């Protein structure tokens, strides 16, 4: 897998995520999907900017809001759509659904915070194997409530593990504004464990990419964990349902929508071409997934494998 740093390609990746998620939300009322979903609309620049530094074999650990991380990682749009529709061709054959995605070196789970010890263990494994790979773990502001997060920071720093933490502070955990559930400073949490951390309040993909560069270099050089704190905003509801946030606040943050912000720097014709291509890609992915056969109950294997 190769990750492009070309500004137009970064735009394409963000647009792919945006249009994928919008299509998911548009189609929920049609009963095309079962269960629930958490969309990445508004936060696209985080995953695209950060993961543009990935190298083949690097590990990504994601959370409940994983579609954007997965697409930016290089996951198949069709397979993701199919997973959401419960098709046999889904990323995990329909077993995982929206929040539980595993493919290659990408892992997502719907349990908040519990993924951080996993990411730390993965980083320990990569270090032990001298693979040169690193682990990128995404977490939200809300996940900072979980004690396991701090246990992980301690161990990752203590053992100089190749872990890059990406904290996406979209200022809300579900319906709860961060002012109601978080004391103290986010950056200082990492620093307290001796983990160098940097923060930006931005939706600019180039700025995020640039900010991530040094962190990747340091982690890859074996200098131990690093953290990036990105202050951002989600434009759509927490999941598919109601949104109790002030519409004026949402409108205000929409003024710094990462897509037009970045597009304004690009050649308009090239942007239009990308838009048409992405439109086509999204339509094709959902159409194909819709036509795929439903996951087959006979495919359910026992939850324990045979002993070797």
């Amino acid at each position, binding site marked *: 897998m190769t990750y492009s740093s070309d500004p137009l390609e970064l735009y394409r990746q963000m647009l792919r995520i945006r249009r994928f998620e919008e299509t998911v939300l548009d189609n929920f009322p049609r009963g095309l999907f079962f269960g629930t979903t958490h969309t990445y609309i508004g936060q696209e620049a985080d995953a695209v900017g950060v993961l543009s530094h990935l190298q083949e074999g690097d590990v990504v650990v994601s959370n409940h809001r994983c579609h954007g991380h997965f697409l930016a990682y290089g996951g198949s749009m069709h397979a993701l759509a199919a997973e959401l529709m*419960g098709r046999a061709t889904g990323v995990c054959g329909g077993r*995982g659904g929206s929040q539980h995605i595993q493919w290659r070196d990408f892992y997502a789970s719907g349990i908040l915070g519990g993924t951080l010890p996993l990411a730390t263990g993965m980083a320990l494994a990569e270090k032990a194997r001298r693979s040169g790979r690193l682990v990128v773990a995404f977490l939200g502001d809300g996940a900072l409530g979980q004690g396991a997060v701090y246990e992980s920071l301690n161990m990752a720093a203590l053992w100089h593990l190749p872990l890059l933490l990406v904290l996406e502070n979209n200022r809300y955990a*579900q319906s709860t504004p961060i002012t109601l559930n978080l004391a103290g400073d986010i950056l200082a949490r990492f620093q307290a464990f001796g983990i160098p951390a940097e923060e930006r309040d931005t939706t600019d993909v180039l700025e995020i990419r640039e900010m991530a560069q040094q962190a990747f270099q340091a982690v890859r050089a074996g200098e131990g964990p690093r953290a990036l704190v990105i202050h951002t905003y989600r434009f759509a509801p927490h999941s598919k349902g109601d949104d109790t946030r002030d519409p004026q606040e949402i409108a205000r943050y929409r003024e710094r929508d990462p897509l037009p912000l970045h597009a304004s720097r690009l050649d308009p014709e090239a942007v239009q071409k990308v838009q048409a291509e992405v439109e086509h890609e999204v339509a094709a992915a959902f159409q194909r997934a819709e036509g795929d056969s439903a996951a087959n109950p006979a495919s359910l294997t026992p939850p324990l494998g045979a002993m070797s």
Partner: protein
Amino acid sequence: MTTVLKALNAALHFCLAEDPGVYFLGEDVLDPYGGAFKVSQGLSTAYADRVIATPISEGGIVGLGVGMALRGLRPVVEIMFGDFITLAMDQLINHAAKMRWMSNDRVRVPLVVRTPMGGRRGYGPTHSQTLEKHLLGAPGLRVIAACTLDDPGGLLQKAVLRDDDPVLFIEHKLMYTRGVLALSDLEEWQAERTDGVYPAYRLRIAGAPAPTITVATYGYMAEMAREAALRLAYQHEVFTELVVYTQLSPFEPEPVLESLRRTGRLLALEEGGRTLGWGAEVLAQAVEGDLGGLRAARVAARDMPIPAAAMLEAQVLPQADDILQAALDLARK
């Protein structure tokens, strides 16, 4: 007719009004959101100082509840999805359940932890489980499961206001929108309630011949059991008696044994995994009850994580047809 959701919500309003020691804590519980499943709707508006939106810290907030309870309050902690009860396991088992006993009965832990379990909504492997089986049999912890019958709000109210021991109060996501069924309104059924704070219910179809199968169950499965019982009666002339428990742990065998003395056949139904669970205990107690000639079976989930896709989920969780088939097989034995 009120719904289970409204009944539970009303019970919480009542508890907060009744006792200034009652506090309500949980994630996203404040108005206008009112909780992920809306059980806490209106509470924070009416009792702003005693309804607390917490960080996403399930272990922390259950432990917090234990501490509050030890110091004289009566906290109710909401865990948004039953699946996350695993994060509070240490607080429940090593702290809440033992404090009273370890202190030589000096202290009390009047804590209620409420949570919705269950699947059938496509939420996938970490948001669909029925995990109470892992907490059954923990000495010092009471596990209660609401059902649509009788008075689910009253059940919660008793747990909050009258129980001085820690209670894990299990709800089911599909039950919230269902109507509460007062025993007197159950026209097709003849229903009785056992004595005790957390009763069991005995239901049989009114005017039907003597039942030949005892169906032991709880929670949302009691809904499925009632539907199955009607089909069994009208389509197959197999008559069942339902014994619906509200107190799962400690387990009290008498209601099911009493019924079994008349039927001799036992079918245990639960949405949790089949082996080593509630139904297993019911069957074991029945065997130990020395009834003679007992025939028994269980219907439960396959011992497998719960898949997200609808078709797959339906294969793992027990369905109405599974109940029907198991009962018919049992009737022939």
